[in-house]
């Protein structure tokens, strides 16, 4: 799994590639919480278009990011969900909880 970030005005976009599982979900969690809670970026966007698989620990990291963003009044956005990633969010009934878009253009315009 690889993660990198880009800045666009008051938005940080995390580009993630590979599988998110127990081996690397702590990296995602740490990056998200730092961005949301410490840096207080008003809008944090996760580009998951190159993520093929997310396990429950990855979902938990995304939920932590979402809860932290709610706590500080910022926005937390996902886009580019693979079929598998969409399935796990549906199975956990979290798909409607997140702000989800198909692509980056829609995510930034939303």
């Amino acid at each position, binding site marked *: 799994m690889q993660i990198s970030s880009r800045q666009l005005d008051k938005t940080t976009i995390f580009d993630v590639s590979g599988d998110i599982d127990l081996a690397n979900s702590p990296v995602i969690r740490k990056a998200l919480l730092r961005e949301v809670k410490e840096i207080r970026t008003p809008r944090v966007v996760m580009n998951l278009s190159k993520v093929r698989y997310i396990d429950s620990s990855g979902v938990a990291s995304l*939920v932590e990011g979402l809860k932290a963003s709610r706590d500080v009044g910022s926005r937390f956005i996902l886009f580019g969900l693979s079929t598998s990633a969409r*399935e*796990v969010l549906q199975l956990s009934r979290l798909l409607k*909880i997140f702000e989800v878009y198909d692509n980056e253009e829609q995510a930034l315009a939303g």
Partner: protein
Amino acid sequence: MKSLDPARRAKAKERNGDSSRALLLRMELPSDPSLLCAVRGAVERLTESFGFSEPDCRAVTRAVDEALTNIIRHSYKGRPDQPIEVFVRAVHGQNSAEPSEGLEFLLCDRGPSIEDAQLCMRALEEVKPGGLGLHFIKQSMDIVEYKRANGTNRLRLVKFVRAAKQDVSS
């Protein structure tokens, strides 16, 4: 990918001497999270070759991955050097009213016994991190059974191949 060659299935059955429970794959691995991707790859290929639909391939792969994750996190408390064994067998059984072939995954670890309370799932209505793995396993598999025997935790997961729906209009 094509379905598993019937001759290879028959040979596997001969080797195991039990025509209803042919061993297809056996994996021994340490409880190292970095190996989960290798297991997912093997399970994904096996389910594809066995004839599962794409959604079911993903479901079985997810269930096995989540079960291994639970072993690493809860049974071995994150220690990366503890033994895990995975046995995969072809099984025959009932899927709804139809007899069906399926795959059985037996995951074995030598951690402490799992209490019933640990196998309880939290309510999905709660939006909070954690506690989703068992949901994914139970939603993905047809049979989920746990037992403790000879100092070993044994989690048995079974998924049957669903018959493709036929188009009755043609």
